[in-house]
Structure formats: C-alpha cells, structure tokens
C-alpha cells in the first residue's frame, strides 16, 4: 500500500485525535478489510 495511506492510518491509530473506542473500531474495520479479502 502507499506510504501516504499507511501514514494516515498510523496517525489516526497512534495519535490523540481518536478516542480509544474509535481506534478500536477503526482497527477492526481495517482488519476486516484486509483479512476479509484474503483467500
């Protein structure tokens, strides 16, 4: 994936702009997209 996309997610998941619950929800969605597509 592009570094830019990764960096944007990294900022969201490690920064202070999202609450812990929001980070948890975002992480779940990311994992669902990545592993939901895998064979």
């Amino acid at each position, binding site marked *: *994936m592009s570094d830019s996309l*990764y960096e944007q997610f990294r900022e969201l998941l490690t920064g202070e702009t999202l609450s*812990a619950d929001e980070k948890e929800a975002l992480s779940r969605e990311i994992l669902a997209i990545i592993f939901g*597509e895998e064979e």
Partner: protein
Amino acid sequence: MEPVQITPKASSDIAKLAQGVNRAEVALEALKESELTPKQVQQLEALLKKVSVPSATTSPAVGEIKTIDNHQAVVGQITVNGQQLDTLLSEGSFNKLRSDQHKYAEELGYRMAIRVENRAYVDSLLAKEEDKSINAAEANALKTYRERYLRDDQGRLDVVGRGVRYWYDDDSPSVGALFVRASAESK
C-alpha cells in the same frame, strides 16, 4: 458458505489479539506487511474518508490568528464538534511582530481543539460511570484517559475548565494563559 481459509499471517495476528496485543498495532502491522488488492486499497481509502477527524492535517482547527487591541494577546478561532470557539492567548511579553509566537499560538490552537474533544469525550464517560451505565470498553477507555490525558504532565497543556496553562521549553509557566470561549461570548 465456503469455509474460510486462515493464512499464516492472519493466524499470527489472531494469536496476537488473543494474547492481548493492542489491536491498533496489529492493524498497522497488517497494513504495512500485507499485499493489498486494488479493491482493498479502495476500501481503505473510503474508510479514511469516513473517519472525520478535526486534526491539524485533515481539517485546520485554527481559522485565524490575529492580535487584539492591547497587542499583548492573540486570538485564534477553532472549531470543535461543530462549535466555533475562540482561543485567547494572553501574555505580557507577547510580541505581535514575532512570527514564531504566532506559530506557537497556532500550534496551541490545534492541540487545544484535540484536548477539548478529548475532554468532552471523557465527560461523557464520567457521566456514564456515575450512573453506572458504562460498559467494559468505555471503562477501559476512561482508565486510559485518566492515566494519559487528565494528568497532563507530559502533554504540557493543563486544561482547567476553559483555561489552559502552558509552558515554554524553559519550564516557565508564568508566561501566559490560553483561554477558550464560545465565539459568541468573545469580544
């Protein structure tokens, strides 16, 4: 329904989650190491757009920085949860001609917007805790906030009501104060 094939990578990540490893760390590792299909990239880009974050990089929190009458303060407008607020940075030694002080005030505004949001979220969690409607995830979030944000030794912004004491790098807390007011109240 066809059985789901668990790849070694997915299996490893599931094991980490079971061991209590931070889910965000797992998600970031998966983002970094997985070979994503174009469709997955598209989905991730859509997910990014869906997450609305008023941060310094995605949505400038400070609309304007300007000096006010006595030339010893700057006021910056920020938007938090749709509400427009003024941050008033006041200090005796403020020099309106020094661009670095404007920049510093602007950075404070960005950080303040995030802090105000965090505080609003914490307030909602405290209310839930008080009426015993808080769930386990929220209780965990509140614990994190208590440890990381409310005792703001590292953040160097001490939120007191709508006022914020701040420090320059030389640990001189007397240099000024940042106050946040609803714009309608500000003059």
